[in-house]
């Protein structure tokens, strides 16, 4: 039987990695990811998981070691945040282009400067073109489930791409929640051992990561892009199978609130739950607003989003990062460009909020709704809650 326990979400992620029987873990500690890898190093040291734990000297090395181990055919896990993810930058692209199914937790934290250990999405948004599958969890159970599913998705022969599971730093990593920890036997059935298609093997030598001359490079990129786009179908399959086996159903995006509401909030990550509660405030006067929560960020679930936004007159996109020097936050920019495909386009209101760990309350979401109702900040973005005067 699965057991439901009160546990810090970070430790639940470590538990998920253990249940997934990761064979190599290469990580460097960084707030707010630390508890995950601390716990994993203990699990390995205690002999509860037969894995190689590589305590590397930097995140650049963590991702490099992860790539080496994955290329050798191991199931590999790592975790990082903020500056650590930024330090991995060049290697992240190599993991996806070599088609290595590494799973990584990103405990989302602001990028410096000023130095901030708190939560926003500036770290992963700076890496969004890295060619990885990228998902966002909203709560501890979801992150636990997604972590195990991530291995299954990544290692599918139709996919073979790394997966980043994003969880909001502190807000999720350090929260204690009631989480259903599944049985090893059932996870083993859901996630059989990794069988690589290509691997480094002295008996059958191959070269990974050779030079791509101009006659090859574009084909390599196309192959990678098609694999990422086509992974969407596999992700859906895996979500479905998880629901059948474990009873918790996930979709690429989730919708919530009265269908006929014409104002739609779009969120990614833990703020979705705050909006859920804000809808109760907003909808006292009728079916005013509903919400869409993006779980799958890459590949971008355009088809699903367009269907979910049908009938919407105003879309309020919540961003958690600034995309400097352009007209929107990263999520809103994507949504806007997608909406251009529609004959009748809803207005887009973009609020960039919760930067550097600033709290966003449900009252504030109500205020955003009111601004949108009045047509203020139509087709513009606003960095929310900034003091204009001392």
């Amino acid at each position, binding site marked *: 039987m699965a057991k439901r326990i009160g546990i810090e979400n970070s430790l639940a992620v470590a538990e998920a990695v253990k249940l997934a029987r990761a064979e190599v873990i290469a990580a460097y500690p960084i707030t707010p990811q630390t508890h995950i890898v601390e716990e994993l190093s203990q699990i390995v040291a205690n002999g509860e998981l037969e894995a190689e734990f590589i305590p590397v000297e930097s995140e650049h090395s963590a991702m490099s070691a992860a790539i080496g181990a994955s290329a050798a055919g191991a199931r590999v896990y790592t975790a990082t945040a903020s500056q650590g993810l930024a330090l991995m930058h060049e290697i992240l692209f190599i993991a996806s*282009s070599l088609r290595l199914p590494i799973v990584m937790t990103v405990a989302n934290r602001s990028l410096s400067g000023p130095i901030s250990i708190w939560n926003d999405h500036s770290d992963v948004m700076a890496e969004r073109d890295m060619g990885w599958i990228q998902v966002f969890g909203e709560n501890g159970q979801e992150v636990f489930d997604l972590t195990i599913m991530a291995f299954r998705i990544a290692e599918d022969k139709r996919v073979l791409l790394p997966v980043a599971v994003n969880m909001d730093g502190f807000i999720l990593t350090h929260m204690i929640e009631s989480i259903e920890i599944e049985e090893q036997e059932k996870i083993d059935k859901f996630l059989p051992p990794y069988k690589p298609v290509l691997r480094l093997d002295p008996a059958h030598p191959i070269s990974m990561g050779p030079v791509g001359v101009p006659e090859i490079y574009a084909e*390599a990129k*196309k*192959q990678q892009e098609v694999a990422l786009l086509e992974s969407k179908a596999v992700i859906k399959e895996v979500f479905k199978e998880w629901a059948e086996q474990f009873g918790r159903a996930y979709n690429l995006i989730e919708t919530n609130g009265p269908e006929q509401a014409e104002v739609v909030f779009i969120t990614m990550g833990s703020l979705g739950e705050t909006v859920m509660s804000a809808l109760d405030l907003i909808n006292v006067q009728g079916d005013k607003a509903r919400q869409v929560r993006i779980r799958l960020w890459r590949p971008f679930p355009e088809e699903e989003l367009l269907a979910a936004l049908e009938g919407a007159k105003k879309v309020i996109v919540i961003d958690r990062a600034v995309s400097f020097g352009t007209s929107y936050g990263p999520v809103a920019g994507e949504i806007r460009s997608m909406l251009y495909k529609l004959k009748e386009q809803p207005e887009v209101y973009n609020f960039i909020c919760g930067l550097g760990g600033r709290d966003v309350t449900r009252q504030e979401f109500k205020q955003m709704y009111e601004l949108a109702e009045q047509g203020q900040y139509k087709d513009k973005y606003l960095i929310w809650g900034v003091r204009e005067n001392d």
Partner: protein
Amino acid sequence: MNYPSWRTLELGAAITTPGNAAELKTGDWRTEFPVLDEEKCVKCGLCAIYCPEFCIHEDDTGYFRADLYYCKGCGICVHECPKDALTMQLEEK
């Protein structure tokens, strides 16, 4: 050389036939090629040592000759020959 399409390209552009770099015709890159003056050559083999393509080999007569399938026309052999026995000549294609 036939290049694969994105569909048949090995996963992640891996090379699954070890040593297939030998098939790469670096000779395609050349505009000039080295010509040997047998009168001046003392068969020291320095040109073969310096050639970055390792494409100069000793033949049955003891002379060192460039394999034009690989010679990329860099001219290093000409530069290094202590006897000025090599000269670069423009290749007409």
